[in-house]
Each structure stands twice: as structure tokens, then as C-alpha cells.
């Protein structure tokens, strides 16, 4: 369903994955992705589980006029004074 370059750890989707931002973020903790917003939610264009792909994905998001999507820690409790 998806193309995957041998040299890259980034998956560029042949067919965009339709989702909502909440669904995608909640289901893919730790993943960084690129998605294009539309009236129904987001079309995921590419994603990676490697933090080192962050810059490439940000540049891709910029070139596609899309959104760079990232997940944040959900473990533990951090309080701010």
C-alpha cells in the first residue's frame, strides 16, 4: 500500500491516509509525520519513527504546504510552579 525507500526510514504514502489529528496522534506515539489539513481531517503524506528524520520531514511539509506533526511525551506527570 505504501512505498518505502530502501535508504530512508521515511515512509512516503502512495495513497494518503485519511485521519483526524487526534486519532493519528493518539495511535502513533513517538511518530513524526506530515499531513495536509482538509475539511474532513488530515491526509497523512509521510511519516517516520526516527527522530533523525525530523528535518527532512519539516522540509517536506514546507514544500507540500502541509503540517509537520509530532507527538510529545505522555508518560509521567510534570508540574509547573
Amino acid at each position, binding site marked *: 500500500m505504501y512505498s518505502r525507500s530502501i535508504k530512508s526510514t521515511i515512509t512516503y504514502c502512495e495513497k494518503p491516509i485519511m485521519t483526524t489529528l487526534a486519532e493519528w496522534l493518539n495511535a502513533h506515539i513517538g511518530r513524526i509525520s506530515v499531513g495536509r489539513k482538509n475539511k474532513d481531517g488530515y491526509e497523512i503524506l509521510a511519516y517516520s519513527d526516527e*527522530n533523525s528524520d525530523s528535518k527532512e520531514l519539516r522540509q517536506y511539509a514546507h514544500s507540500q504546504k502541509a503540517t509537520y506533526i509530532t507527538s510529545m511525551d505522555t508518560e509521567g506527570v510534570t508540574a509547573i510552579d
Partner: protein
Amino acid sequence: MIKTDIVAEMVGSEYRIPVDMGGIAFSIKFDNGAGSTVVSIDAYAKNLSDDEKNRIKDYCESHSSGKSRFRSASGDFFFGYPVIANNVFLGNTCFKEFYYYIVIENKRNISLLGVDFLDNCEYVHKPHENIVISSFDEISYSGRSMNIIDNNDLVTFIDSL
């Protein structure tokens, strides 16, 4: 008051809200134990080098009136710089102004929606259900006068690294 329909959904042991902010999207933790809304630099770019983080820190130092000192539950101290972002979506609700502190040095990548925002919200939580924010007092929330970093400029700077 403006009507909102923001759902903080239970994920693991936390309530989280999706945020779309100027080409960056992530989820933020509903945290009424946090005094301030903070977002770590990891939301913008993961795997930044120390040199890149130092350059971002210098940028924030020179583009804001000051920084605030925070302490995490684990006892670590860290600094945050005030930022304003325009047209930020929390769920499906767009906020003309959204204020937060960008955190650069903290060891953990955190995103917390704190009391500075939640204090302006009317929200409902029923047992075993999500939290729903139904209205928001944008008048009391908006119009901070301090010298503050523009989110768009910050993103442009980070992209240039």
C-alpha cells in the same frame, strides 16, 4: 465568552488535546496542575544539536522581554520564553491568540496546557468520559502587553537552521 467544542481525550493516563499551530501539530496535555502553558522545542524539531538549541536560545533571549523559571515534578529547573501564536486550532476551535512558553533546555519533551489558559475555560468532566471545554473567555485571556516572541518568526528561524 466564545462557544467552543474542544475535547480533551483520555490517552493512557492523561487528557490530551490536538493542537495545530502555524504548520506544526502536536497534542497538548490538559494540566490544571501546571501554572503556565509550556511547549518544548521538540514540538518543532526533534534531534536538534546543542549548537542549534543554543542558537534558538539566543534568538529567544533577544526577541523577548525575559524568561520565566519553572520547576518540574522531578525537581529540575528550566526556563521558558513567552511566545504568541495566531490562529491556533485546539481541536476544531480556532484561537486568534494563543500564549505559551517555549522550553528549550528541558530534558523531556513536554506540552502542557496550564492554568493560564484553563482559568478562562468552562469545562465539564463526567466520570470515565473525556473533558469537554464548552466556552472560553477570550477577553480576559488576550492582550498581554509584554514583549513576546512571534510564533511565525520563531518557526522561520528554526527552519533556517
